[in-house]
């Protein structure tokens, strides 16, 4: 009977851990409606041209052809081809959590190059993780105990809620940033966040910062980084810099890594910098567009952390097959230099096409120089500056405009009306179509506006555009964040995903 079934279910839930049955993974939030809409009706240029275009996935698909070309020319990089097979046995057997030396060296070199060789990285400090996801979680396990807090500037990558908190028990304390100063981190906001934590009896263990920022697409300026370094040293807490978008810089200002700031500030002993507080998270998922290969890197200037994190890497080692492949390709200096340069150009072009297309319709984005997305300002399209309104607008964009974009609230943004829109996970034609749809949506809004202008006055905080929407049923949304890594492959129709046998 259904009653015994429910009872059995309840008992079973009781038999599982609290972690397993909590909602802290954040994946049951209503924000997943966007993904669902896409999954049920995914856009395809020829097969489904009216489907939902996926603009919620921060993937870098623009330069994979360069890597594919390299693969074809370098069969030895794969242990399984005739040229590489002599290495098969050793590689297949290699599960040392130190990682292949060639791999670590290649990663260290690559990281240096991405920072214009202004700093060098020590291969012995390179620790593997199961993607940046695994590396971040491990770092939290190393730096914080359950209940401890980490400060994080808003808006931030939604999956931090899962990656940093779920199994670790760590708490996140927001450093509030807003558009009045382009979402830069201020000293006041820093101190305020710290004080809030203390007031809530949360022991602050550190600060985590994504630089370049997801979702803003901006790089943190040197001065702010110096402020942060002084702050963490003063409070004797850690700084974790998630630099996974470092090579997606396509415009000035130049990227400044925390490693550079550390190097500079250390030279003046009056700065009292303790390098053991500094840690970097890296990955090849964004810079090279290889999320499938699960290349997470933890780099720490603290020997204890390196040692501990290395042991923890057993829980998410990078496949030795993949380590070998990457050691090969990243050791090819000519290829790497060419790739970084070309990838940057393509991102710049795509960014420009997209932002210019939006500007034509009166839509502005936060000025950005990095990342795979823009932080789009749609505040003027809200009837009221509330998150309810943001959600309504968002549902409209998904269902009427048929674009899956990500609402700012899912990034814990304190101002309603901002949306993250990804532009590097599609081809040029799709970008065109997305822009056309936005154009049509905006035109329709103008038409409606002229009609309603006769009845209502436009409110002062709204600019020229005001759209009247058909109302939609709105769920009571919690501030839970969706998992920004889609559980579903972007290639919903790919034979890989559809394999039946």
């Amino acid at each position, binding site marked *: 009977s259904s009653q015994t079934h429910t009872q059995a279910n309840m008992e079973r839930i009781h038999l599982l851990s609290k972690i397993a049955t909590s909602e802290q993974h954040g994946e049951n939030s209503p924000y997943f409606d966007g993904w669902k809409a896409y999954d049920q009706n995914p856009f395809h240029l020829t097969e489904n041209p009216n489907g939902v275009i996926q603009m919620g996935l921060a993937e870098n698909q623009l330069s994979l052809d360069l890597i*594919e070309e390299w693969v074809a020319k370098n069969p030895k990089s794969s242990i399984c081809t005739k040229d590489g097979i002599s290495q098969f046995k050793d590689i297949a057997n290699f599960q040392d959590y130190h990682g292949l030396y060639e791999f670590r060296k290649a990663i260290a070199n690559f990281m240096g190059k991405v920072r214009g060789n202004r700093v060098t990285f020590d291969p012995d400090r390179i620790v593997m993780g199961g993607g940046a996801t695994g590396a971040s979680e491990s770092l939290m396990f190393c730096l914080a105990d359950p209940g401890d807090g980490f400060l994080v500037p808003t808006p931030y990558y939604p999956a931090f809620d899962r990656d940093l908190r779920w199994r670790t028990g760590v708490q996140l304390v927001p450093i509030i940033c807003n558009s009045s100063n382009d979402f830069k981190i201020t000293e006041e906001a820093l101190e305020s966040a710290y004080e809030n934590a203390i007031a809530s009896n949360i022991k602050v263990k550190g600060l985590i910062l994504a630089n370049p920022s997801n979702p803003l697409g901006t790089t943190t300026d040197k001065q702010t980084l110096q402020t942060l370094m002084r702050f963490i040293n003063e409070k004797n807490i850690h700084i974790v810099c998630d630099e996974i978008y470092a090579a997606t810089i396509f415009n000035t200002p130049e990227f400044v890594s925390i490693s550079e700031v550390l190097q500079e500030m250390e030279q003046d002993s009056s700065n009292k910098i303790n390098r053991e507080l500094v840690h970097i998270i890296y990955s090849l998922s964004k810079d090279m567009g290889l999320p499938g290969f699960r290349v997470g890197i933890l780099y720490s200037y603290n020997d204890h952390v390196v040692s501990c994190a290395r042991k923890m890497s057993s*829980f998410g080692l990078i496949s030795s097959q993949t380590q070998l492949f990457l050691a090969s390709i990243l050791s090819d200096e000519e290829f790497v230099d060419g790739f970084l340069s070309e990838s940057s150009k393509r991102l710049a072009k795509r960014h420009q096409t997209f932002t210019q297309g939006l500007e034509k319709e009166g839509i502005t984005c936060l000025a950005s120089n990095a990342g795979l997305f823009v932080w789009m300002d749609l505040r003027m399209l809200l009837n009221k500056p509330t998150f309810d309104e943001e959600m309504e607008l968002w549902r409209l964009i998904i269902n009427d405009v048929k674009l899956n974009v990500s609402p700012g609230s899912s990034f814990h943004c304190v101002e309603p009306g901002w949306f993250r829109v990804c532009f590097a996970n599609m081809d040029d034609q799709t970008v065109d179509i997305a822009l056309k749809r936005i154009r049509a949506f905006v035109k329709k809004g103008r038409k409606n506006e002229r009609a309603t202008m006769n009845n209502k006055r436009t409110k002062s905080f709204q600019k020229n555009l005001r759209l009247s929407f058909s109302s939609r049923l709105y769920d009571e949304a919690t501030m839970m964040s969706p998992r920004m890594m889609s559980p579903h*492959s972007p290639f919903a129709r790919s034979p890989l995903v559809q394999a039946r046998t």
Partner: protein
Amino acid sequence: MLSSKVTCNSHGQDSSYFLGWEEYEKNPYDEVKNPNGIIQMGLAENQLSFDLLESWLENNPQPAAFKDHNNQSIFKELALFQDYHGLPAFKNALVKFMSEIRGNTVSFDTNNLVLTAGATSANETLMFCLANPGDAFLIPTPYYPGFDRDLKWRTGAEIVPIHCSSLNGFRITKSALEEAYKQAEKQNLKVKGVLVTNPSNPLGTSLSLHELDLLVNFISSKNIHLISDEIYSGTVFSYPCFTSIMEVLKNRNLMNTEIAKRVHIVYSLSKDLGLPGFRIGAIYSNDELVVSAATKMSSFGLISSQTQHLLSEILSDKKFTKSYLLENRRRLKERHEMLVKGLQKTGIRCLQSNAGLFCWVDMRHLLSSNTFEGEMELWKKIVYEVGLNISPGSSCHCSEPGWFRVCFANMSEETLILAMQRVQSFVDCMAKKSMQSRHQQLLQRNSRRSKSLPKWVFELSFNQREITADER
């Protein structure tokens, strides 16, 4: 300044299990470069059948070149594929392979399979799903030393041993199960389940039907989980056949019951296919809540798509998997016999075993004292004087001193022969050195008795040993 996880040593890496490895690293045997170095016999790796895989790869170059079997490049799709549900082609091939190993007596549903970066990750993930910090899992001793780290370190879970003794070949008994449960209660630990390794590491034996039934009855009566770590299931090389816990559930008509929902299997290709570097692990569970939670957690350790694709092609080749499994087992059996016979010549017995990549060796008669100190003393002699890195039973939480796990599948035949020669010299030397005729008498008595021994290849003499109550 750092978390308590950094400063505690629940990662277990200060144990002798790992220290032996360190010594090996400092002075590794090499046939040419370092013939007097330490021979690694502490690594449960299967290096016997790489050639079979290599030849498959030579004949099938496409998957490694990021191509499908139509020779179309799927590089882009693989590079972008990070779906935690896993590559369907790989999961399909994996469940079929798992079935094949079990003689197709059971079938597995891909919807119940969660992919993880190695069994290490699978075991930890299951703990996170089933146990709260402070909850306990019961594990029969001796057990894989890595469990201390994998199951307890970051999860905060506890392990309570189910003591098994050489008196009955280290088999799990009902009273041992009950005793362990009581112990947990005494320590105020809530027992969430039992974890067994079948076939066993370090014993090399597969669980008997009786033991499997006991386990099912036990978890049923206590309303707890059962995790069956079956990563050595493909290494069963002789009688009795491997029986998976799933088969038992099926035969007892328990498949769609609440009990079945509390049974979970851990699998990996590290031992059966000898591919530990590729980090291929899996959790199989009949409980959709566990599958759901574990799937999300697998984000912290997904299998590289490049590797999933390669393995999906290898495992889909049914002709290959059939011949590989057969040939691999044959080679393991041969190697196992070599070690057992080699040791027998020196008067050293092994627990009779039918699986795994190692033997559980009885060196109790070589102890200077029947204590764990005596075991450590002997172990150090073996590492430094004999030049073999083997794993002392205490590192596996064995309750009796004097047992050692000795691996046989991670070296060439020549190296194994050399290792046997070294053991022979050592034993001869010890026999000469021993002023106590007691040792010599023991050796003589043992060799006379061996002819009348039925199945058990070791014996326990109460006159000569005082088994201490020392439990680790």
